[in-house]
């Protein structure tokens, strides 16, 4: 992907992830985060939650993966911000969508800004992460 090929409104391919409980267990291990919210059903019942809660921090990884895969291994993610909207539970599938909102030439290279959203797909479709913005430098 070269900067000349990019324009405002371009969209990276959607990224879909189904987050099963074993994925969440692996993530909990890989991030040294063993909070009971993410696997302990007895604990979850005391909190009134219907199923293990997906650790929201993982969505940062998905947002980064979408732009990195699209813009290639020489692209460098410079900034990433996101806000949590709705909870996501074990077994649900999320979709990361995005669109280019700016392409600017700077002394560091071409900076591409992509606005992203993460939506839970299926019968209870809802927004999980809103107002995400990734800034990627192409060199």
């Amino acid at each position, binding site marked *: 992907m070269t900067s000349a090929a990019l324009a405002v409104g371009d969209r990276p391919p959607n990224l879909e992830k189904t987050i099963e409980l074993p994925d969440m267990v692996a993530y909990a291990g*890989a991030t040294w985060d063993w909070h009971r919210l993410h696997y302990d059903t007895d604990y979850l019942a005391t909190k009134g939650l219907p199923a293990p809660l997906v650790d929201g921090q993982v969505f*940062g990884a998905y947002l980064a993966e979408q732009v990195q895969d699209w813009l290639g291994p020489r692209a460098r993610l410079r900034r990433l911000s996101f806000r949590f909207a709705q909870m996501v539970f074990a077994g649900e599938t999320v979709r990361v969508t995005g669109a280019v909102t700016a392409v600017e030439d700077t002394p560091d290279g071409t900076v591409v800004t992509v606005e992203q959203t993460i939506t839970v797909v299926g019968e209870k479709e809802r927004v999980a992460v809103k107002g995400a913005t990734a800034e990627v430098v192409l060199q």
Partner: protein
Amino acid sequence: MSLLTPEIEAMVGREVNYTAPEELGRAAIRYYAQAVGDDNPLYTDDEYARANGYDGVIAPPTLICETNQYAGLERDTEGYAGHGWGLDIPGTRQVRGGNSYTFHRPVRPSDVITATWTITDVRERVNSAGHEMLVINSRANYRNQDGELLVTNEETLIFVALEATA
């Protein structure tokens, strides 16, 4: 009663440092990449990473913002072993607002991470349902053993009153 007590206000500027007991490591990077389902060879294949301008494999950018590896803390009764401010505010529930990451330089397996967490701002708001909220902004700077700034993580935590005030 206001959630923004003098004790809470006095927390602005509080700082905590954590230094990992060892290098981040290639296995930790591969484990994380596999756990999030990201098969980009930048994280596992030295040759591929070198061909794309790096010294060797790098960590996925958000890894050090998400891991508690550096903290070395005992897990609490809820199983959590990461950084926290020890805030227990009666009559509220804690929710995560969001994060803003700035990536200054790539993180490598040989980096020994030091995280410096600082409370930057506390303020009070009322949400659309009339519930008081305490919004706590903090910042983590992650550096390696050479003092190089790797990533900055700005985080918003929100404590929402369980009952509406009005």
